[in-house]
């Protein structure tokens, strides 16, 4: 599908239909040039590529708008989302097109329509949901499907040209360049101009100069001389266009492991009804999952509005599940917690439930004392909180294999870590050697010490002076030199390092290390830290460190408070 007037369509949708002829302009090589035009401007004889001044000279009332490729791209993405309803295999065709792979979809729709009419639906109808029952919207042939696409998208205010072909490239080229109807697909492709190959302008001109004007001219020639004259790229493009090589689209979304959908003749206009349908689909999913001895950890509900907009609601659980009540409850939580509520508009005419991945889940034996039940109740609580508050707000600690204090534990979303391993016990009899609260980044303090490399005497933090009554230390923690060594390999300045001995080499290391993104705070990981556990006269316990060894690594080491003990 090709949308020739994509920017204009986007603008018209936003600002209403009656606008003066509009040009979308962009600054190119010092001149303001027209990049795209709307229908009226095209009719007046303007063409993309003109400078704005030229265009204005021809059409004085021309309105100029900044070209916004990013917004166009988002708009195209939304169109592609809407195209999901016909096939899960949707790919963007950069800048102004969408390619759908409808292989098997015609039959798929037929099968689906048959499958959904099952006796189970009777109950639903009894509850007054008969209008939700599938209407058997079937696409008798590919042409009917194409007509449906065309009708829906033009209702949404889009100018489009679509073409059906055996390969994605052929369909893209036909949508863009076909001017006259042809007997069959092969003929149509042969009649296309060479521009359909999508080569550089120079190659195109060279082809035209050689008298090769259409694909047909090229198709019968042996590929070797063509490759020698115009490059391998041309032959590849030609092969793909003519279907000589097997080319596929790469869909925007991976195909889910399980996909269930329901279509309605009359759109569902209430969110509650939509949820009831999701509930129903979740029950179907449960049956399918049980057959496969699996469970899902992620459920995605997609609501297709009749005007083409798509709303996606996705939820996650910590443990794989196939109990339909869980996703339904979480969907409800998520919808309640949405900042912008779901707007059914004129109603949803299709609702889908997808399970992106299926994980093994065997039937469980309940423990006599109810351990499993408590575990599941806890997992359900974590799921509910993560769904409502956001997955990053509910965290669990995962230990990391490092001795750098602030990196020893990562707080990861709890739904990703349903069952963390227990931590090693600290040695018996020792007081806590690590603080309960850790500052990241550490906070700078002013310290008075008797000697520069000695223990601290008093320090000032947050405008309060703390007299240190007792201390223990230093506990020396050095940076992770092995990481720095590895990172230094790609761009080694060995000569520099060799020439500058001692402190300078160290400084050089620091500068390099500070560029690394995984570096500890302050960007100086290579400096050794001397940690002191101190207690002030009022009994408050702090974890301080001196950053850098005096006279070995730095002239005047800074002090930081890194943590607070209970």
């Amino acid at each position: 599908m090709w949308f020739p007037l994509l920017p204009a369509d986007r603008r018209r949708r936003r600002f209403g239909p009656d606008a003066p002829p509009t040009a979308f302009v962009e600054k190119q090589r010092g001149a303001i040039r027209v990049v795209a035009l709307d229908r009226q401007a095209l009719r007046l004889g303007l063409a993309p590529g003109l400078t704005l001044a030229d265009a204005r000279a021809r059409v004085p009332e021309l309105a100029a708008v900044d070209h916004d490729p990013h917004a166009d791209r988002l708009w195209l993405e939304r169109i592609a989302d809407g195209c999901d309803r016909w096939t899960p295999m949707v790919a963007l065709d950069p800048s102004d097109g969408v390619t759908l792979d409808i292989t098997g979809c015609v039959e798929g729709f037929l099968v689906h329509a048959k499958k959904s009419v099952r006796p189970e639906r009777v109950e639903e109808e009894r509850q007054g949901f008969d209008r939700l029952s599938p209407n058997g919207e079937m696409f008798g042939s590919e042409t009917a499907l194409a007509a449906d696409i065309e009708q829906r998208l033009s209702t949404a205010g889009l100018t489009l040209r679509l073409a059906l072909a055996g390969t994605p490239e052929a369909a893209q080229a036909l949508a863009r360049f076909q001017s006259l109807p042809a007997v069959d697909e092969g003929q149509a492709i042969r009649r296309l101009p060479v521009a359909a190959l999508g080569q550089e302008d120079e190659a195109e001109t060279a082809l035209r100069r050689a008298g090769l004007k259409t694909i047909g001219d090229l198709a019968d020639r042996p590929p070797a001389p063509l490759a020698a004259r115009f490059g391998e790229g041309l032959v590849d493009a030609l092969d793909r266009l003519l279907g000589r090589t097997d080319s596929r689209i790469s869909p925007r979304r991976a195909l889910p492991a399980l996909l269930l959908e329901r279509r309605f003749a009359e759109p569902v206009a209430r969110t509650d009804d939509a949820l009831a349908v999701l509930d129903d689909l979740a029950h179907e999913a449960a049956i399918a999952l049980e057959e496969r001895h699996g469970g899902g950890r992620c459920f995605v509900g997609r609501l297709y509005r009749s005007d083409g907009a798509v709303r996606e609601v996705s939820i996650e659980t910590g443990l794989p599940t196939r109990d339909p009540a869980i996703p339904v409850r979480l969907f409800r939580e998520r919808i309640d917690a949405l900042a912008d509520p779901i707007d059914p508009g004129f109603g949803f005419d299709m609702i889908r439930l997808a399970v992106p991945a299926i994980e093994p889940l065997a039937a469980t034996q309940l423990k006599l004392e109810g351990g499993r039940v408590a575990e599941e109740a806890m997992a359900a609580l974590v799921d509910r909180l993560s769904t409502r508050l956001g997955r990053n707000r509910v965290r669990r600690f995962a230990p990391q294999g490092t001795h750098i204090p602030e990196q020893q534990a990562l707080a990861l979303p709890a739904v990703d870590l349903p069952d963390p391993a227990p931590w090693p016990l600290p040695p018996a009899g020792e007081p806590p050697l690590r603080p309960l609260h850790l500052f990241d980044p550490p906070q700078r303090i002013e310290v008075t010490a008797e000697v520069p490399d000695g223990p601290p005497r008093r320090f000032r933090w947050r405008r309060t002076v703390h007299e240190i009554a007792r201390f223990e230390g230093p506990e020396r923690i050095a940076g992770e030199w092995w990481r720095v060594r590895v990172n230094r390999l790609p761009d080694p300045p060995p000569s520099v390092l060799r020439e500058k001995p001692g402190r300078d080499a160290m400084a050089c290391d620091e500068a390099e290390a500070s560029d690394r993104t995984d570096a500890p705070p302050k960007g100086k990981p290579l400096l050794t830290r001397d940690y002191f556990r101190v207690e002030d006269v009022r009994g408050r316990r702090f974890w301080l460190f001196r950053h850098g060894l005096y006279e070995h690594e730095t002239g005047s080491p800074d002090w930081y408070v890194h943590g607070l003990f209970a």
Partner: protein
Amino acid sequence: MQDRLDSHPAKARSRTYQEHRTVESVDALCALRNRIARIEGLRPQDAPIHAPLGVDSLDHALGGGLARGRLHELFAAEVADGPGASGFAAMLARLALSPTAPLLWLRQEEAERGGGGLSASGLAQIGIDPARLVLLVLPDPVMLLRAAADVVRCSSVGAAVIELWKQPRALDLTASRRLAVAAEESGVTTLMLRVDAQASPSAAHTRWQIAAAPSAALEADAPGHPAFAIELLRQRGRPGGGRWRLEWDRERARFGEAALPGLVVPAAAGGPEAATLRA
């Protein structure tokens, strides 16, 4: 209030749940007995189950120890006592938890910034297995109290620490009563940790004020085990008041009485510890 709640069937059910939760070693037999009791509709005693803190005079004042399945309020004496109070909350949670039950800690983003992030290794050093901890970091007090109500209602949670800084308007008598009732029904020991806040009327079972206290020095004058000067401000149904000096013993998971450090208590420090010395 107790009698009125007793007639409620949900109350009886939750009580057995709570008894179920008190099984320290996961003893299948004991749990089974509980389940049978529940099936038969037997109602265990109403009084909360107490977890002894380890200091006799304090346990006596509390009627046996920290009441599980109740709401307790812990106030940091000053902002700088925040880490002390949060350590004390962690220790109380450790006392009240069965070894496998999860601990939920709810914090504000403000607390994460101002008081430092909760450190897993630090918790491990106090005696709490970080693997059992679920940490919730929320942007505002309203959201936090809402999440807290959910957490406290879930009976498979062992203990919940609700850390609130300053004086949020959302935390009124209604909110605290809601939490207290939920805690009683589910049996979740709920610790409301308040930093930089003044005590206001609440439905809490006990209210404490916590300050850090100088620890008993180890060898070479090193800082020792965590020590606190605590004051029991009030408790429901029993006389409040009283000050103690406690020292945490991680291995026993109990408090001990802290020795009075004769050396370094400044006369100028007018905080609770000075008062304790006088008492």
